[in-house]
């Protein structure tokens, strides 16, 4: 069962400038967010990712068109109601002073508490559940400002979970995090979306991670119409390449990676297979060589057990490590 929780009709996003001028970044957007799915918003800087999230979350005025949250038009939803529909994790730094992790997560309960903001037993249980879901229950009485970036991000995600909204928006939640923390954050978001049936929209620059974790991808570019679909289809149809290719970088459809293109300084053939062959290939490409290309090879490397044999101008040298291989090629060149 895939139910739509958010959809847009001919939405235009952008900024209103002085004198009534409108700086429209994208128009005619018909988008859909489904429950139980992670959607990753990808695109270069300045393509309007934050603007889209800010518009959908109601922080920024809609330039044209409509946004529907569970079939209700966004502007007709009261602030209190919308707080129970959508929650956000933003890029802006949070300075809450002397607040403990529990208190920050408790912010998520504000739409449900009375005028003094006191927590009921249900609120406390929901907060505890959010702390467990994000794996930070042992941090509950730590001061927020003492935490690492990754931990802080988890606290804010826990806040969003405590808010119990069907939709969660996250603006670059993995920026500034180390690689394992990025994976952790995406894993817990995927868990939340799958197990708690939430629609999650996050913007990110981590292309590879988006391909691995996203159920849907929205591609945004400068002066290009937005594209949406599942990652694999977008790659195969060449959309990814279209959005991310630059002069010096090419998106490789086969590997789903970026290749840094430069005029190769020569072709080298590798005879052999297995892990060492793969890594040797990477090392040579990094040094600017083409591997197993069509040109006449400047050198041939045979991989035998634990050894590399480099043949160049009918001279042969042996090498134990890839470093020695690179050294030998450099000397000969």
């Amino acid at each position, binding site marked *: 069962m895939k139910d739509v929780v958010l959809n847009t009709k001919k939405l235009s996003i952008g900024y209103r400038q002085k004198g009534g001028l409108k700086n429209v970044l994208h128009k005619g957007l018909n988008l859909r967010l489904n429950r139980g799915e992670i959607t990753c918003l990808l695109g270069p800087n300045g393509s309007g990712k934050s603007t889209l999230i800010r518009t959908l979350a109601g922080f920024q005025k809609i330039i044209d068109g409509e946004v529907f949250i569970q079939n209700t038009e966004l502007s007709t939803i009261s602030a209190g109601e919308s707080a129970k529909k959508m929650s956000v994790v933003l890029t802006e730094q*949070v300075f809450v002073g*002397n607040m403990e992790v*529990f208190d920050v997560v408790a*912010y998520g309960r*504000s739409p449900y508490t009375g005028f003094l903001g006191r927590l009921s037993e249900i609120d406390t249980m929901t907060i*505890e559940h959010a702390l467990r879901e994000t794996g930070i229950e042992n941090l509950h009485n730590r001061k927020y400002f003492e935490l690492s970036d990754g931990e802080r991000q988890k606290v804010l995600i826990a806040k969003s979970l405590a808010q119990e909204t069907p939709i969660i928006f996250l603006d670059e939640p993995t920026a500034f995090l180390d690689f394992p923390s990025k994976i952790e954050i995406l894993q817990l978001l995927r868990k939340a979306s799958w197990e708690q049936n939430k629609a999650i929209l996050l913007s990110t620059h981590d292309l590879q991670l988006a391909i691995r974790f996203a159920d849907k991808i929205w591609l945004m570019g400068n002066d290009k119409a937005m594209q949406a679909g599942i990652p694999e289809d977008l790659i195969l149809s060449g959309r990814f390449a279209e959005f991310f290719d630059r002069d010096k970088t090419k998106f490789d459809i086969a590997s789903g990676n970026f290749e840094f293109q430069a005029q190769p300084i020569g072709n080298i053939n590798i005879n052999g297979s297995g892990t060492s062959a793969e890594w040797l290939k990477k090392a040579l490409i990094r040094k600017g060589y083409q591997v197993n290309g069509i040109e006449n090879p400047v050198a041939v490397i045979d991989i035998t057990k634990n050894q590399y044999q480099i043949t160049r101008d009918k001279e042969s040298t042996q090498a134990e490590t890839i470093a020695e291989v690179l050294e030998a090629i450099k000397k000969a060149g």
Partner: protein
Amino acid sequence: MTEISLAYQKHQKSIAGKFVAMGLVILLLFILNIAFGSVTIPPLEILQIIFGTGAGKASWQGIIVDTRFPQAITAVLAGAALGVSGLMMQTLFRNPLAGPSVLGVSSGASLGVALLMLLTSVPGVRIITQNQITNNFSVVIAAFAGAFAVLVIIMLLAAKYRSNSTILIIGIMLAYVISAIVGILQFYSLKEDLQAFIIWGLGSFSNVSWQQLTFFIPVVIFGLGLSILMIKPMNAILLGDNYARNLGFNVKRISILLITGAGILVAVVTAYCGPIAFLGIAIPHLSRNLFKSSDHFINVPGTILSGIMLALFCNMIARLPGFDGALPINAITSLIGAPLVIWIIIKSNHYQKAV
């Protein structure tokens, strides 16, 4: 009951305990405020006067009932009001150095009083005479009008410009402009009027009569009541404007209510007591430091209690036996308040996060 919710409950109990302890300290300070003064009255006599069983000397009765009681109550009101206004401003501007004097509200009150006292000293246009000034209700009106004029300007700017730091800087600049105008007024005014203005500027808790308290008390209670209604919104804006908006709060309305509330409290205190230095900045820090929390559910009552405590303490020091008569309250609040702020900021070395 899990470990986390138990820890939460225990935490709340320890806070309640601190409130009770502060209440007892306040009671003690209040009694000491009644007991100390330039005239020494035996403790037994004081108790008899308080419980209405008559006094040894009629003049003692007068000193306790008409001088020391109103003065202690004024200190209580001023401390609570200045503390809460400081808390509101520090939270709104997310700046630990925000306070009543920073936004230009105190200066506005000064300008009002200066216009009343000094402009009238131009020969021929004198409206009120010297001895009318010190105890006149018109000073209160003038201070209130001046404070509110500045406040309205700040509020209009707040509605137009969203950036709190912009408003804070405008407030500080406004304060400079106003003190320059006050300086010019002082330059052209008569010696006696200038003296009266300077004495008002030194601040005092002792110029409020029972009759004036009947206006002072309800206004302060109104301001404090507003601060209690703002507990949840103040917590929300601590998280940031966009987060607060997402949680269903109307950030603009919160800003306007906080500026109004803080303004009313500062205006009324400045009107009756003169511009009191440093209490507004120091008290919220004292509370946050005592409770090790930024939660306004704790800090609004915490600030009220800390404010009463600090103001009564300052008032007591100013009137300790040996200081013939009484020292100007502003000297004491500065001498105690400024080092207190420095100490708290050095101690909590993450001062930018101290709000």
